[in-house]
């Protein structure tokens, strides 16, 4: 009885057993997605994730480049809080970032609206090309070019400003003017991209909305405030976040044009990480500055997204 029962049970199982093999290969097929993501994830782990975690770990060490590392607990962080240079770098980076982001937004929007309103195809084409072209140049090359242009002794900018009756400062050697000058260099190279974002954003606003506003008798200003701005706000948020993150990592301009000077008044955070590690050879302290940079950047990005709920308007058409 039991035997035949088992046999019957087995018999019932046999067709199932036949499916065990495809089951296995299905399981193997289940590995295929992991194969697809494995190159990306391997690189991501080795060159992004692990270095990030390592930076946090190293920030708790005292590690001279040629010496042996040993743990110092929070000492680096305590030092950092009392480091006036770090504070200066933070201030410089903030000033640079906020000026850059604000200028990007205003100039790009004005430019995009201007190009949209122009009826000359040639002008539209010329402006688009002229503003986007510098974006293709390499940062180092752009810096060298502006170093000549902004030179106090033989640069044309100071010369023409003087001709116009101004008394131009030595742009790159003035504690007050150095950051705004670097913002100009940055804008020259990157404004074209924000401009294109805005242009695409403007084009995607349905004309119906403007027609409706006009029928209701809205003035040009009201159409701008109540149609253009809200409809463009997601694009604007994107542009702000992108230019903010980009500007916060700024390094090239300071490194080439001013070397952080005069008197550290243009030293940026990333530049300070670089200096601490590869010029002062303090790997631990350099990492601590890196961690702080990251924390500040993440906090600000979160704040931006938080505030954005009040001004960014998502239309579901």
């Amino acid at each position, binding site marked *: 009885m039991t035997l035949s029962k088992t046999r019957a049970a087995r018999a019932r199982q046999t067709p199932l057993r036949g499916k065990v093999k495809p089951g296995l290969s299905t399981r193997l097929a289940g590995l*295929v*997605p*992991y194969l*697809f*993501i494995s190159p*990306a*994830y391997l*690189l*991501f782990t*080795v*060159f*992004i994730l692990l*270095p*990030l975690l390592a*930076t946090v770990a190293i920030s708790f060490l005292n590690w001279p480049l040629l010496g042996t590392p040993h743990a110092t607990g929070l000492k680096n962080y305590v030092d950092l809080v009392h480091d006036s240079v770090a504070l200066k770098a933070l201030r410089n980076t903030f000033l640079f970032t906020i000026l850059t982001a604000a200028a990007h937004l205003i100039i790009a929007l004005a430019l995009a609206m*201007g*190009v949209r309103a*122009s*009826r*000359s195809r040639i*002008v539209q084409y*010329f*402006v688009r090309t*002229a503003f*986007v*072209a*510098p974006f*293709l*140049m*390499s940062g*180092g*090359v752009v810096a*060298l*070019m*502006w*170093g*000549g242009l902004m030179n106090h002794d*033989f640069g*044309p900018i100071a010369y023409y400003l003087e*001709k116009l009756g101004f008394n131009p400062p030595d742009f790159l050697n003035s504690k007050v003017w150095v950051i705004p000058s670097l913002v100009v260099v940055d804008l020259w190279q990157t404004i074209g*991209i924000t401009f*294109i*974002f805005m242009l695409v*954003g403007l084009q*995607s606003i349905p004309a119906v909305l403007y027609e409706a506003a006009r029928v209701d008798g809205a003035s040009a200003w009201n159409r701008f405030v109540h149609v253009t701005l809200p409809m463009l706000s*997601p694009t604007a948020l*994107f542009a702000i976040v992108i230019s903010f*993150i980009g500007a916060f990592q700024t*390094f090239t301009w300071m*490194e080439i044009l001013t070397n952080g000077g005069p008197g550290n008044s243009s030293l940026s955070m*990333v530049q300070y990480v*670089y200096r601490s*590690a*590869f010029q002062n050879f303090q*790997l631990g302290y350099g990492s601590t500055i*890196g961690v702080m*940079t*990251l924390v500040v950047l*993440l906090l600000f*990005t979160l704040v931006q997204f938080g505030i954005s709920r009040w001004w960014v308007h998502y239309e579901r058409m």
Partner: protein
Amino acid sequence: MRHPGRLTGQIVLNVVLVLGGIAMVLPILYTVITSLEPASQQFKLPPQWIPRHLTLQSYRLIFRMIPFTQEILNSVLITVVVVVGSTIVAVLAAYAFARLHFRGSRPLFLIMLVALMVPTQISAIPEFLIMKHLHLINTRPALIIPALIQVFAIFLLRQHFRTIPRDLEDAARIDGAGHRLIIRHVILPLSWPAITAVSIVTGQFIWNDFFWPKLFLTSQSKMVAPLALVSFSDANGGGALGPVFAGVSVMLVPILIGFVFLQRRLTEGVGFAGVSR
């Protein structure tokens, strides 16, 4: 556009726009003109916008004093290899994240996305130590290998792949097509605008970068062109304006070539990258 008849408005607007465009171009023009002047004229004010004497002296100097041809080739090579390599890596990963169901796909994707906000420069120290252990300091692979992962590209391509109708893929699968054929004959043909956009963004990023070359490359012949010009300029002080500007002008050539090929794609591509956030 919406105010027919406002002729004066149009004229003023277009004049302002053209002046803005000229202001953007003038720095480049000044650089090219100065690079063509004899050394005695380069520092003279007012700047001569139409120089009387033209000479290639500065160009001869820069090519003689540093291995500039090699360095430009380094720049182009690194950019091209990274664009092709990182796009392949990104297409594979984006396809899996957009189309395949597997355990952990959401958290794995989210971890990458969070990393998108983290500037890699802040991890320069471990990055340098890794390269030192791999004996890659002062080699081109030090710039290429870490750049093969472009999280932004994966994100953008995934967003795009999700918009491709599944029916197309199902039809291909019923006909017996595997992942390789589906990617090649369904996904890729419908994704060229997205892939172009991703390539442009990545290419610009690599071409523009100064931080990693500065960190990893030390000997002249290994350097990328911008870094080589900067170190040449630092070594020679302000006196080398002519050769430096000649180098800058030469660096405009690859861009002009790129611009001719990309033209519309460039603005469309960047716009695309902006819209599919």
